[in-house]
């Protein structure tokens, strides 16, 4: 488990519009990498190209290379479904399946990928919910709908659902932006624990969060409206927040941006 990602010269397009240009970065296994930057700078788009979710949007395409442990995930022989099994994703808004119970939500990935014996499913569901710090809260109501949980619980349910399929990498697109501080803390603790087994990439607008949870931080910026976003720099989080190489990074972090 836990693989590295190498991105080289990645550009992302929506139709003819170039949203992100020339991104190259390396993500180490069992580390947390945070992407920060202003809205529209393409950090979410970069995240979505890492597991080929980007191409789900009509008209969206990309160029460049994304290597998962040395294997190009954009090579023509690669099935995007297999890529997404290896690289899971948690979204900005909690999106549990409304027709499914808590149990079925967690088991969804496994069930929808193929049949598994019930006992094995039970084990995986419990393990995933425990890993997501949700087991104690829901163990007595696994057959209730997942949509009935609170926002923070729903997001942890979505994380449990994502790790139930045992991906190599977990991508998180602003996972706490719709949550209160206590739920946010619960999820940050969770990220800290998950780091032991997974490679995690997180997009966040909360710079304190990036400083708290990540080992490395990448700063994205765009020159202006209609211009493509770029990766300005990526370095150890400590360094980015104390002594960044680029002036733009320092301006953004200290709030002097724009």
């Amino acid at each position, binding site marked *: 488990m836990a693989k590295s990602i190498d991105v080289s010269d990645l550009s992302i397009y929506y139709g003819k519009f170039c949203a992100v240009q020339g991104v190259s970065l390396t993500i180490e296994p069992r580390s947390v990498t945070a992407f920060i930057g202003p809205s529209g700078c393409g950090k979410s788009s970069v995240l979505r190209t890492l597991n080929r*979710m980007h191409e789900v949007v009509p008209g969206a395409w990309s160029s460049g290379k994304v290597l998962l442990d040395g294997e190009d995930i954009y090579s023509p022989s690669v099935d995007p479904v297999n890529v997404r099994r290896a690289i899971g994703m948690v979204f900005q808004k909690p*999106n549990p399946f409304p027709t*499914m119970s808590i149990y079925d939500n967690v088991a969804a990935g496994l069930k929808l990928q193929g049949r598994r014996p019930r006992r094995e499913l039970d084990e995986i569901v419990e393990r995933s919910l425990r890993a997501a710090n949700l087991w104690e809260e829901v163990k007595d109501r696994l*057959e209730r709908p997942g949509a009935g949980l609170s926002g923070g619980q729903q997001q942890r349910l979505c994380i449990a659902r994502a790790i139930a399929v045992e991906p190599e990498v977990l991508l998180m697109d602003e996972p706490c932006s719709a949550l209160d501080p206590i739920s946010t803390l619960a999820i940050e603790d969770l990220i800290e624990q998950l780091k032991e087994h997974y490679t995690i990439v997180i997009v966040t607008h909360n710079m304190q969060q990036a400083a708290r949870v990540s080992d490395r931080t990448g700063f994205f910026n765009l020159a202006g409206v209609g211009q493509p976003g770029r990766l300005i720099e990526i370095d150890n989080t400590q360094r980015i927040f104390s002594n960044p190489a680029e002036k733009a990074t320092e301006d953004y972090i200290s709030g002097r941006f724009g």
Partner: protein
Amino acid sequence: MSILKTPVPGASTLSGTSTLSGARLRRGTLALVAVGAIAVTGLLETFTPVSGWAGSVLMAAAVYLVGQTVISFLVEGRRHALDRLVTTAVYAAFALAMLPLGAVLFKVVQRGGGLINGTFLTHSLRNIGPTDTGGGVYHGIVGTLEQAALASLISIPLAMLTAIYLVEYGRGWFARLVTFFVDVMTGVPSIVAGLFIFTVWVLMLGLNRSGFAATLALTILMIPIVVRSTEEMLKLVPDSLREASYALGVPKWRTILKVVVPTAVPGIVTGIMLGVARVMGETAPLLLLNGFTSSINFDPFSGPQAALPLIVWDQAGRPNPQSITRAWGSALVLIVMVLLLNLGARALARLSRTR
């Protein structure tokens, strides 16, 4: 004017100077206006040629609307007066829209209700003369149920697959073409669908009229309704659910089958029931394709088969009161059948939901 001006309960004692509380109409005032409107109507009717209860009700309603708005304007001001005017108008429009529905139901129950009994529901009209009482519409119930079931069996899968194609896969000119033809099909008059099947089935293929021939025409009518409603329901499923499923490494077809369609099921069921109701009440194609019989025929594939709308049409066209009463009774049976199917489908959709 003292009955009109009253401070809002709980308003501050400084209400004279408060800018937050204003004069409101007392609860009893509107009742007074209503009584006044009825009185004015009575007065007006002595001078004008308006008569009959429908005219009186309409006039009283109009007088009430004007009176209420004017008094509200004088006491409460322009915004409240407009609010009351529009609120009353919306309720009036609702009542007006419900009127035909209520009237039809009332008339059908009044004229046909007395006929409904065990015999009527379990016997056919075989050997029942025009002036005989007795007999029933069992042959029609069997025919209508079989034809509607067969039509559903053919159209629901076709229509749902079409809708799924249009929403999940369809891009470019072919999808636009399919959408266009679905729209055209929605507009096809039922008699034209009937004539088309008559031409193909009876004239070209030389086959006999039967329940199944009618079923084919009903299918043409049902498919576009179900496609359209299913399409709209599938579009309402948020993309975030599809993405959540893709992100788990679930293939697209399984995502559609296990996430998208189940999420849209309540709406899809409603659409299907609209289609079934439309098809069960359809008469024109049946006139061409069912053939005529007053006997029970369980086999829709051979020989003429009756249907409830056909019985209504046939019996209502006869001069004797016994037949006309039977027409009302058959209409009532048809309405109740559609209602029961609707309730049943809803209960099923509700049962399948996670609680």
